[in-house]
């Protein structure tokens, strides 16, 4: 890209604050008292199943929904009462929402036209925006002549050309096939980093959220269940919903057992216990309380049986290249999944009874 083009499109991201946002449709609270603070230049993903309220939050920030209660601030300025067109926010939609009767260049020039910027200035900015999304020379094309990926690049260029301090994206890659989606994830991340834009990105794809976001807000039932970095969300989920929604996981039934000052976890249907370390919410715990233990498959090790430690029957081995997925039937009847290195799986065969091990401080236990 030439240096002049870089100068024409430079975004100074501003912080965003959603405070006490509530929005109900009839008796259903789509968003229930949500507060969300996004730093300048940060990429935040709103992750959740459909109906969790993530899109409603985005539409309220954009100005297409009016909150029942709560305020929206961008760069310290309250924009709750401003119409969408006056908010200086760029938005990218799932189905691109390009203007079908305009060329690529006319689409990108539209926000400039609305700001009464025309002539050479506008043409230069459109060129720079096209270069930014690597579509030099496509200005004269009709929208119908572009592929899905190219259309989404045009939508990105159009949302960035007027340098809004905040970009909103509503499942922008949802309509693309898998390979293109992964390519575009990197592309969007590259642009966001380079321009320093603040991005709020709605998705139901956890892989997308983990790959792209600085922080993820996991949503369910109109509330934020956890707002943290991808690593924290994955390693230390705040509750059962987050543990089950993000990543592959084992949720093993059992109960809590006091062991002097420490706690152990007894697996259901057996006397086997495991040690627990570094747990968060031990205050409410009681001896014998029913609980669920969360452990990621890649943390589970398969080995010889040891007295008093968990064990199970190997029912299935699934080879997937570098790793092998080992399905183990626990005494309770539930299945546990271990993802082990192919080399470690050499001594394991279907029908073996094996011992299971995992690091005591890498599991999470939730009172059930």
């Amino acid at each position, binding site marked *: 890209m030439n240096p002049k083009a870089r100068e024409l499109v430079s975004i100074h991201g501003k912080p965003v604050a959603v405070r006490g946002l509530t929005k109900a449709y009839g008796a259903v609270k789509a968003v229930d008292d949500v507060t969300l603070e996004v730093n300048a230049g940060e990429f935040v993903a709103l992750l959740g199943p459909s109906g969790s309220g993530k899109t409603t939050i985005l539409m309220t920030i954009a100005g297409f929904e009016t909150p029942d209660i709560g305020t929206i601030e961008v760069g310290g300025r309250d924009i709750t009462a401003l119409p*969408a*067109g*006056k*908010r200086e926010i760029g*938005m990218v939609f799932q189905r691109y929402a*390009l203007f079908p009767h305009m060329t690529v260049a006319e689409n990108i020039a*539209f926000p400039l036209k609305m700001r009464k910027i025309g002539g050479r200035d506008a043409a230069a900015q459109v060129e720079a925006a096209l270069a930014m999304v690597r579509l030099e020379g496509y200005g004269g094309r009709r929208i119908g002549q572009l592929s899905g990926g190219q259309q989404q690049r045009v939508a990105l260029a159009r949302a960035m050309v*007027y340098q809004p301090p905040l970009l*909103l994206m509503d499942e922008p890659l949802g309509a693309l096939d898998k390979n293109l989606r992964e390519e575009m994830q990197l592309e969007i991340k590259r642009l966001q980093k380079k321009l320093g834009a603040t991005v709020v990105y709605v998705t139901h794809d956890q892989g997308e959220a983990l790959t792209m976001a600085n922080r993820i807000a996991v949503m369910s039932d109109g509330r934020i269940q956890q707002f943290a970095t991808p690593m924290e969300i994955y390693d230390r989920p705040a509750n059962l919903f987050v543990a089950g929604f993000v990543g592959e996981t084992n949720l093993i039934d059992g109960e809590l057992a006091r062991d002097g000052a420490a706690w152990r976890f007894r697996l259901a249907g057996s006397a086997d216990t495991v040690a627990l370390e570094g747990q968060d919410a031990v205050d409410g715990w009681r001896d014998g309380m029913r609980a669920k233990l969360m452990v990621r498959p890649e943390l589970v090790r398969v080995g010889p049986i040891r007295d008093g430690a968990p064990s199970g029957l190997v029912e299935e081995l699934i080879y997937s290249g570098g790793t092998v997925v080992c399905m183990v039937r626990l005494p309770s009847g539930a299945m546990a999944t271990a993802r082990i290195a192919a080399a470690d799986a050499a001594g394991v065969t279907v029908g073996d009874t094996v011992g299971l091990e995992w690091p005591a401080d890498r599991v999470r236990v939730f009172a059930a």
Partner: protein
Amino acid sequence: MAASVPSRQRSVSLGRLLLVFFAGLVLVFLALPTIVVVPVSLSPTEYLSFPPESLTLRWYGEFLTDEKWVRATLLSLRIGLSVTLLTTIVGTMAALAIVRGLRGGGPLVNALVTAPLVIPTIVYAIAILLFFSKIGVSGSFWGFVFAHSALAVPYVVLIVSAALYRFDASTELAAQSLGASRVQAIWHVTLPAIRPALATGAIFAFLTSFDDATVSFFLANLNDVTLPRKMFENLQFFVSPVLAVVATLLTLFTLALFGAAQWLRTNRNG
């Protein structure tokens, strides 16, 4: 099995033959009277005759030089164009309200706006005569325009709202997020994108007005008559081949407009 296949094919082809025959018959009965007016309009006799003994354009000249026929034609055109302009604007606004604006009231407004389609035209014509006489616009140019507009507006609403339902509403939201007001978003994005539907609606509106005889029959005074009304008069008092000329021209004109509408509908994204 091998024997049954050809026999079934045979019965299918016989059925097809009958279908084509009857369909052809229906088309001939529908189209023939319309086609017959063409040779009649070219006949040299003073009365309507078929088949004509020879061909002449004499009655076409008569039509174009008769001041009464020309006045009636121009009046119908002026009314038609005014109706087109008025109903395209009003109908498009109504369609926008029904599809985008009114959340609960859409169906009710839709039913009200399209009511003239289901009310018998003669009932509407009598009602409009009584009402217009009271407010003193009966027989005036604007009386025709308003009466025809009420008949024509349902077509515009139906055609435009169908296009609006097909049009992705997030495109309009995108325009707003890019700095447009709601009105600007509709003006710069929605309306240009549904241009073919607007043109089709306008053509239907024009034809509704231009072809109307019933309402004009009730509203017209002795001096200002529309083309269909003038044809009625001609039929009653002195049947001349000019009538066939007008019928021929009217048919060709209508066909051309409908052809244009059809072309716009099939080349929506052209």
